């Protein structure tokens, strides 16, 4: 399947602490020791979310060519032991804590969608 969600997140992991982070950081935020690059899982569950109901201030926000539409955003918990902030390509009324999601790198910030959704 083609699409941004197939582009896995490139984070990092500390061997000593088993702490994973995104984006990759050469140092572990917990112990300060070296962290190695790690490709993170492409699936997870939604830990929390909200909906951006109004257009954020521009700059820095870049309004899409088609105009602003409210969008969902949330933290996706991965089996790697990290929660990653992502734009949710899901209609706001369908978003529920705990829902299984696919997550990928997208063009800029991470993006997530329901498992099985064509993205």
């Amino acid at each position, binding site marked *: 399947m083609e699409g941004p969600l197939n582009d896995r997140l490139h*984070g990092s992991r500390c061997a000593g602490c088993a*702490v994973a*982070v*995104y*984006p990759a950081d050469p140092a572990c*935020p*917990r112990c300060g020791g070296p962290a190695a690059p790690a490709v993170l899982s492409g699936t997870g569950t939604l*830990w*929390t*979310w*909200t*909906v*951006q*109901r*109004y*257009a*954020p*201030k521009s*700059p*820095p*926000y*870049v309004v899409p060519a088609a105009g602003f539409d409210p*969008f969902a*955003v*949330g*933290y996706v*918990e991965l089996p790697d*032991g*990290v*929660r*990653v*902030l992502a*734009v949710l390509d899901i209609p*706001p009324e369908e978003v529920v*804590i705990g829902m299984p999601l696919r997550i990928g790198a997208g*063009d*800029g*910030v*991470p993006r997530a969608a329901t498992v099985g959704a064509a993205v």
Partner: protein
Amino acid sequence: MSAEDVMICGAGITSFARTEATGRQLAVRAVRAALADAGLPWSRVRAAYGGSDAAGNADTLVAELGLTGVPFVNVRNGCATGGSALVSAVNAIRSGAADVALAVGFDKHPRGAFDPRPADWGLDEAYGHEGLMVTTQFFAMKIQRYMHDHGISAQTLALVAEKAYANGVRNPHAWRREPLDAAEILASGMVNDPLTRYMFCSPGQGAVALILCSRAVARQLDADPVALRAAVVRTRRFGSFEVFSPWAPTGTPISVSTDAARLAFEQAGLGPDDIDVCQLQDTESGAEVMHLAECGFCEHGEQERLIASGATAIDGTLPVNTDGGCIANGEPIGASGLRQVHEIVQQLRGRAGERQVPDGPSSGFTHVYGAPGVSACTVLTR
């Protein structure tokens, strides 16, 4: 050296309503009011600490206050600006470096939401371009998960804001002084689910100054001093959940507010059960709900019953944000932390007017929380 050695002998505040005044002009007014309250001249101040986030350097205030040569340290510590200035002033008194010290916090922000830049937070520009550099999203996501875990309802969020506006009506220096009921607050338009427009504070303006002194100086004054039993500032530890985080660790988040509150109570030799009135950071309704538990005033989830019962109202068993908090006063970042302390000082003196907590409260607590994971707490007694 015991914490009882530090007294607040003067407190000054400006109106937090929008005016044409600059942040520095507000700061000068607040300092003069605090000095008058203490009955001390500016020349008597031996150390000064203060700052703003967006309204200039505090040390330049000497041009208006008087060129006495006093050492004046600028503090710029986000939401903990006031708290950090206060801790510095406390340390100056405790160390003996000064017997009279000033802490001042002031600010003036443009209307509308704050507009942080990704680079200042070490983030890729994409987080700004794609609309994730929005502080309100974080607060919404934190309370969203908290409601899920602890059974807090949207009605409770509305009741917190309803109380804030009701207290603002009774506070002559508040910005928002019109009552709003829970139904209006719930219907005011969703900003970031589950938070509606009237559940949020807005960036605003205001200034607060406090004059601190040793107990020996306080005895000579005709002022009405309050003991500052603890003033602490902490930054986050690993495992917390903070604004502008592209990732967060798993597990139940820990809280820098919990760390700061515990340390403040330990220093004061008191506990949450001993507190008669408190001010908790309420940048939005959810924050007050969560900070009640994070600071130790109730169990997680207990807020649903407590708030509905009226416990946190001015005449309740634990009055919270008696001056209307950030929701009714707005958020001038540099001033809010000291506004809370000013309110407790007035409550303990019995000088809080229409918003006075009944039966002579004798102990109070203040708490601020801010990005990127900082908290300042104080404990005061009569």
